[in-house]
């Protein structure tokens, strides 16, 4: 199953931890995981980036990253809302945190 996960909350919330744990479990079960970070969710990039080592795809809203001074890193797509639109369209389940 393809899971699309949207995270919009920042580091003041437990949401990123929940996303990481759900992402790890989903990948262990063989599901595909697409994660999109926007708004304050971009602050959690470092915390969630290890998911890419297990096959998750992470996209960051470049507009929100630029607003918040979050720098580009390897292995993560700095894209836009059109990327989230594609993720939402192709995912069999969409989960939103934030």
């Amino acid at each position, binding site marked *: 199953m393809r899971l699309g996960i949207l995270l*919009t909350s920042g580091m003041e919330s437990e949401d990123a931890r929940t996303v990481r744990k759900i992402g790890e479990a989903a990948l262990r079960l063989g599901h595909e995981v697409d994660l999109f970070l*926007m708004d304050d969710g971009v602050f959690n990039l470092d915390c969630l980036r290890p998911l890419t080592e297990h096959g998750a795809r992470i996209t960051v809203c470049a507009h929100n990253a630029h607003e918040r001074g979050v720098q580009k890193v390897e292995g993560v797509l700095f894209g836009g809302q059109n990327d989230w639109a594609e993720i939402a369209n192709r995912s069999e389940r969409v989960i939103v945190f934030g």
Partner: protein
Amino acid sequence: MVLVRRSPLNSVKSAEALRQSVGLTLAENEITVLFIDAGAWLSVPLSPEIIAGGQIGKHIDALIMLQARLKVEGESLDSYGIDRARVIDGIEILSEEDVVSEITSADAVIPF
């Protein structure tokens, strides 16, 4: 479906919800934007950008032009004392029961 529950005046989240809604139309998704609770304020003319609250007018205009379905819960309007006659043309007023039908018929619900 994008579900907007927050006032546009205390947070940029509502404006971000509208920005995402415009983006979601780009992958041939059928989009419904539903304003409930304090989000009902998005259905009437406001200028939160004056107080750094984020642009909403241009996103609503774009969504109407892109033929997204914009809806507001009538009970939410009433609870905030918002005159139903002020609701922007192109935004449909729904009952609570219709809101439940909209939510349950959506493939995905993205709350803000």
